C-alpha cells in the first residue's frame, strides 16, 4: 500500500478531529499533510511537528470558509490535492470547481454531482429513477399556495414545506391542516429567501418520530460502487446526532438488503465519486425513504470502518488519485456491532450549553479487548492543556466501541466512558452513559424526537412537531 502512487503533499482544509483523522491516513500512504489553520487554532498541540499555513483570523468566515484563501494556501504550499473534511467548504460545489481550476485535486465528488445533490428536487428525481423510495410529496418545487394546498390535500396532513436550497433546519414549516398551508408556505418562502437566497420551496409529508438510517457508499472514477452497510443515527438532539450505530437494530432484513442494493445502483447512476452517504427516514411502516445525500465524509464514518475494516479516508485518497476501488462488494464483510458516541464540550445539565475553555486534564479510554473481544477506538485532537476555541463546533472526541453484539458493544462503551477523564470543561459523557444504560436504548423504544434515557433536560426531549425529516449536521 505504501508504494501506491497517490499525492506527495495534501492540503487539509479543516481543523480539529477531522484534520487529525485525515493526517493519519496521509501518514499511512506516505503523503505529507499541510494543515490550513486559523489564528485561533495555530499553536494547538495536534499541529505539533506538522506543516501549517495560517489562513486568517479565528472567525471561520475569514479562514476556513474563505475559499480563495484556502486554495491559494494549498497552491503555495505545493499541495496537489485538498481534503475538505466535513462542514466548512466540504459540500460547496463552487469551492470544488475552484480547486480543480487551479490544479488542486479536490478529494470528493465532481462539482456537478455535488451541485445536483445540493438541490433537493433533482436529487430526489435521480434517486427515484434508481429505485429508492421517497417521502410522498410535491413533484418538484411548488408554484404557489393553491398548488401547495392541492398537493397537501392529496398526500395527507401533516405536511412539511421545505426550502429547495435549504439545510440545517432552516426554511422549514409544518402545516397540520389545509388552513395552515398558506401561512406555512409564506413563512417558509421568506425564511428560505433570507437564509439561502432562493425562495423556492417543495413539500413532503411530515413523518413524525421515524428513525434516522443512512447508507455509506464509496465509488471510484470507473463506475464501480460499493456500500459499507447502514448506520442508525436516531439518537439526536435538535437534529444533532449524538450516537450512531451499525447495523440498525430495527431495520427489517428484507428492507436492508433491498435498500443497500438500490443505494449502490443510485450511486453509479448519478456518476458519484468518492465517499458519500444517503440519508433515509425509516417510517412507522418499516419503509426506508430517501431524504438526501451528503457528498462528503461524515463524522460517523468510523462506525462503518469498525465493522468493515476499511479505512474510508485512505480509500478516498486512493480514488482521488485515480485508482480503482481496492475492494469489491463480495469481499466486504461487515462484522459485529459498532456504536459511536460524540463527546461534545457541552453541559448536558445546563441545556447543552456549549462550554469552550481549557481542558486541564485529559485521559483517553483504553482500547483493549474485553472478555467478549469488544474493542474501543478513540478519535480526538485534544490533550491535557488543550484550549477549546469558541469559534467552532463543540465536538472534542469520538469514542467508538465494536463488539460481537449490540449489548457487548454498549457494555464496552460504558467501560470506556467511565475511563475517559476530561477536567476543566463539562462534556456530554454523563448523558451518553445514561443513554447507553437505559432500558429505552437497549430495547429500541425511541425515535428521533427524544433522547432515550435522558429526560427532563431543557430543550432536549420531544418537541412535538419537530420535523423528523431534517438533516442533522
Amino acid at each position: 500500500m505504501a508504494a501506491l502512487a497517490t499525492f506527495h503533499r495534501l492540503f487539509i482544509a479543516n481543523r480539529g478531529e477531522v484534520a487529525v483523522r485525515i493526517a493519519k491516513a496521509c501518514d499511512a500512504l506516505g503523503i505529507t499533510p499541510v494543515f490550513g489553520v486559523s489564528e485561533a487554532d495555530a499553536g494547538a498541540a495536534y499541529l505539533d511537528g506538522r506543516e501549517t499555513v495560517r489562513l486568517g483570523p479565528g472567525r471561520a468566515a475569514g479562514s476556513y470558509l474563505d475559499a480563495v484563501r484556502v486554495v491559494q494556501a494549498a497552491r503555495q504550499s505545493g499541495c496537489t490535492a485538498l481534503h475538505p473534511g466535513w462542514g466548512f467548504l466540504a459540500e460547496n460545489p463552487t469551492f470544488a470547481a475552484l480547486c480543480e481550476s487551479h490544479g488542486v485535486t479536490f478529494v470528493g465528488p465532481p462539482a456537478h454531482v455535488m451541485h445536483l445533490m445540493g438541490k433537493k428536487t433533482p436529487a430526489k428525481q435521480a434517486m427515484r429513477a434508481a429505485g429508492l423510495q421517497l417521502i410522498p410529496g410535491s413533484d418538484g418545487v411548488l408554484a404557489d399556495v393553491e398548488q401547495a394546498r392541492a398537493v397537501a390535500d392529496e398526500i395527507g396532513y401533516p405536511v412539511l414545506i421545505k426550502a429547495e436550497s435549504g439545510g440545517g433546519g432552516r426554511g422549514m414549516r409544518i402545516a397540520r391542516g389545509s388552513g395552515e398551508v398558506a401561512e406555512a408556505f409564506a413563512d417558509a418562502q421568506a425564511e428560505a429567501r433570507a437564509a439561502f437566497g432562493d425562495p423556492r420551496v417543495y413539500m413532503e409529508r411530515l413523518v413524525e418520530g421515524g428513525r434516522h438510517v443512512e447508507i455509506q457508499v464509496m465509488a471510484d472514477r470507473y463506475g464501480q460502487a460499493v456500500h459499507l452497510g447502514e448506520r442508525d443515527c436516531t439518537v439526536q438532539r435538535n437534529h444533532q446526532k449524538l450516537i450512531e450505530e451499525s447495523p440498525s437494530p430495527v431495520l427489517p432484513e428484507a428492507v436492508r438488503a433491498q435498500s443497500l442494493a438500490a443505494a449502490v445502483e443510485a450511486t453509479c447512476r448519478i456518476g458519484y465519486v468518492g465517499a458519500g452517504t444517503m440519508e433515509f427516514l425509516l417510517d412507522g411502516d418499516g419503509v426506508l425513504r430517501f431524504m438526501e445525500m451528503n457528498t462528503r465524509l461524515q463524522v460517523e464514518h468510523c462506525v462503518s470502518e469498525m465493522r468493515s475494516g476499511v479505512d474510508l479516508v485512505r480509500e478516498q485518497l486512493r480514488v482521488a488519485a485515480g485508482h480503482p476501488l481496492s475492494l469489491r462488494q463480495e469481499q466486504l464483510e461487515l462484522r459485529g456491532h459498532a456504536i459511536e458516541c460524540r463527546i461534545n464540550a457541552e453541559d448536558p445539565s445546563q441545556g447543552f450549553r456549549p462550554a469552550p475553555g481549557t481542558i486541564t486534564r485529559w485521559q483517553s479510554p483504553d482500547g483493549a479487548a474485553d472478555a467478549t473481544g469488544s474493542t474501543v477506538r478513540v478519535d480526538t485532537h485534544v490533550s491535557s492543556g488543550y484550549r477549546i476555541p469558541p469559534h467552532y463546533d463543540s465536538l472534542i472526541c469520538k469514542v467508538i466501541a465494536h463488539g460481537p453484539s449490540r449489548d457487548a458493544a454498549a457494555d464496552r462503551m460504558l467501560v470506556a466512558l467511565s475511563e475517559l477523564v476530561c477536567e476543566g470543561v463539562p462534556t456530554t459523557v454523563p448523558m451518553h452513559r445514561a443513554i447507553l444504560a437505559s432500558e429505552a436504548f437497549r430495547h429500541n423504544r425511541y425515535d428521533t424526537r427524544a433522547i432515550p434515557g435522558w429526560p427532563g433536560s431543557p430543550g432536549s426531549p420531544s418537541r412535538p412537531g419537530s420535523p423528523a425529516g431534517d438533516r442533522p449536521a
Partner: protein
Amino acid sequence: MKRAQVDGRLFTPELVARLERDGTALVLRSPAVGLWRGAPAAGSMVSPGGLVGELEILGVLHRLRAPDDAGGVVLERPGPAAARRAVAYDDELLRLDPEAGPARAGVGEGGGVAQAEAGGLVFRSPLSGRFYVRPAPGQEAFVKAGDVIEVGRTVALLEVMKTFNRVAYGGEGLPSSARVLEVVPADEADVDEDDVLLRVEPV
C-alpha cells in the same frame, strides 16, 4: 463561496497590510494568503497608505498598501530575497522606522538614478543628453506637475548620440507610485547624468 473571484484584468483589487507596533518600530503583516512581490527594499521609504508591493492570490494581483497611519523607512525585510515570496495570514512583511523621514530615505548607490534631497524625493537622469518632455512636437507632455506615476512609466525622452531613449520612472529608494511635483529641466535642455529630472512625493 463567500467572495466572488475578482478579475484582475478589469481592475486591481487592493488589500491593506495589518499593522502591529513593536516598540518604536512598525511591523506590517500580511492580511491574506498569497505570493508577495514587488516588496520595497531595505532603506526605501514607505509612505502612509502607500504601496508595499502586490499580493498574488490565485493568479490575481492585489495591490498591497500600508495602513493610512503607518509609514517610514524599511528597516528590514525578513525572509528570502525572492522575486515572489509565499506569505500566510499574519506573516511579517516589513519592519518600518516611522521616525526616519523622507530626507534620510535615499540610499542611491553610485550612479543611482534616485536620491532624496532636503525637501523631497527626486528622480535623476540616468544618462547625459538632450531632454524632451513630449514624444513629438505638438503632442502632450509625458508627465506634468500633479500627475501620479508608477514605476515603469515613461517620463521623458533623452537624445543621446543621435539615439532617442525613453526614460522610465523608477529606482532604488523611490516609491512605486508617486506624484510629480515638478519637471525640473526645460524642454530640449541639455542634462547631465544624475541631474534632477523630477521632484516627486509618495502617494
